């Protein structure tokens, strides 16, 4: 029934279940981020963008769109994993997974799988819209995929932790308001590092969002503000650290087992 000790069918079933849940709200899940990106392209590309000089040799929309894309990927990953875990806890059907033969690693992988799928679908949709409206291009698809998957893993893991911790809907959104949105806005979505006041530049270098935005931007338009290797190393270390932390939360039953 299982192969090589991994409950593949079980993992696939978690994905099927989450896909079914996602398809109850397809507009919220996919259409909303695509429409918001379309509006960004219209405003920053045609309305405001035409009055702004180029940034680092790129039109303003070309420079901004990778950041906008990343914000939507962050949102998709974080919402997917928090909602998934929180609703399972809230309606208690997380017990279905607890009583089934899943290892804790499989529980974490299961919770992340649809998060990555949703994030990749969101990102590819925005990329296609950008390409169709001549607002962006794609330098390297493998690199693009690496960064999208990495971003979705980081914020998927963060979302799982929040989903396990939160006791009400208010708490679900706290991290987004006080941490994710501010850090992403000062991480270089709308500007290069050189455009920041000197005293704020060190914040950008210590801000993980900076490396993520930079990586996605490089994969799309070839522009980089930081060494690629450094960004990839920071990202992989972050994923490893957060993966172990979330695995530990599952193994001690934090938020899911009394």
């Amino acid at each position, binding site marked *: *029934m*299982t192969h090589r000790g991994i*409950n593949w*069918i*079980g993992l*696939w*079933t*978690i994905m*099927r*279940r989450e896909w*079914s*849940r996602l398809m*109850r709200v397809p507009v919220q899940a996919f259409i909303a981020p695509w429409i918001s990106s379309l509006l960004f392209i219209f405003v920053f590309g045609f309305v405001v963008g035409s009055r702004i000089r180029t940034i680092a040799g790129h039109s303003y929309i070309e420079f901004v769109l990778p950041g906008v894309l990343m914000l939507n990927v962050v949102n998709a990953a974080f919402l997917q994993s928090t909602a998934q875990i929180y*609703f399972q806890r809230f*309606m*208690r*059907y997380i*017990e*279905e*997974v*607890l*009583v*089934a*033969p*899943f*290892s804790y690693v499989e529980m974490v992988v299961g919770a992340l799988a649809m998060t990555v799928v949703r994030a990749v679908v969101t990102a590819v949709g925005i990329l296609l819209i950008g390409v169709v409206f001549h607002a962006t291009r794609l330098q390297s698809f493998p690199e693009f995929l690496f960064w999208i998957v990495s971003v979705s893993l980081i914020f998927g893991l963060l979302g799982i932790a929040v989903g396990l911790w939160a006791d009400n809907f208010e708490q679900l959104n706290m991290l987004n308001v006080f941490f994710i949105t501010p850090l992403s806005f000062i991480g270089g979505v709308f500007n290069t590092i050189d455009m920041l006041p000197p005293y704020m530049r060190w914040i950008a270098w210590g801000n993980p969002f900076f490396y993520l935005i930079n990586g996605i931007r490089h994969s799309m338009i070839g522009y980089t503000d930081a060494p690629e290797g450094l960004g990839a190393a920071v990202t992989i270390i972050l994923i490893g650290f957060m993966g172990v932390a979330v695995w530990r939360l599952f193994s*001690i*039953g934090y938020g899911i*087992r*009394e």
Partner: protein
Amino acid sequence: MTPALHISHLRKVYRSGTVAVEDLTMDIQQGDFFGFLGPNGAGKSTTIHCITGIANPTSGTIEVFGIDAVKDYHEARRQIGLSPQEFNVDTFATVTQIVDWMAGYFGLNAKERKARVDMLLERFDLTQHAKKRFRELSGGLKRRVILARALVHDPKLLILDEPTAGVDVELRRDLWRYLQELNRDGKTILLTSHYLEEVERLCRTIAIIAGGKIVRNGPKSGFLGSPGGLEDAYLIATGAEPDHIAAAAP
């Protein structure tokens, strides 16, 4: 023979400090139909949660067919099917999805899943409700879905936590017949219930828990043989006075 369930010195203390189960030791033999009785809050559901992985035991050991339910939880859980007291499902999912997903969690492939789901939906008279969402069903139908879900991977040990609470007489009788059939075919069943008639009719061994401790445990005949039958035995064991004893008191 290895017992279907062996619990030794189980203790469960909740974060609030409440001691729900204290030094609980009991065995359930393979093939037994075991009644687990006790007042509300006595520790029945907590014990079941510790067995199935919904709660972490504070101390003690639990073995399911000789497999450690904590250290080798992965394998132990394959042996168990649980019908919990409260509905723990995605209420927006359909009847088929709920049963099919559980089969998938237990590693059944698509062909096996279809066969098991179809058989169980038919057995529990749910076929005509297969595409309905769980939230649209009546209480009795919901209970049937939970039972079908518990059985979908054909577990060796079936744990039923008040499976007939809130269901009509017809379904209760039908369910009794089905459980007896399953037990005759070799399935070990642990049943908790507040209906003593149900336990008296179905079970061969009975344990009574009160205040987190087993206060009486043995073959059903031992309970029925005492004056006043199972009801008096239950009331005495749990510290309540049977009516006729209370009436005779000065």
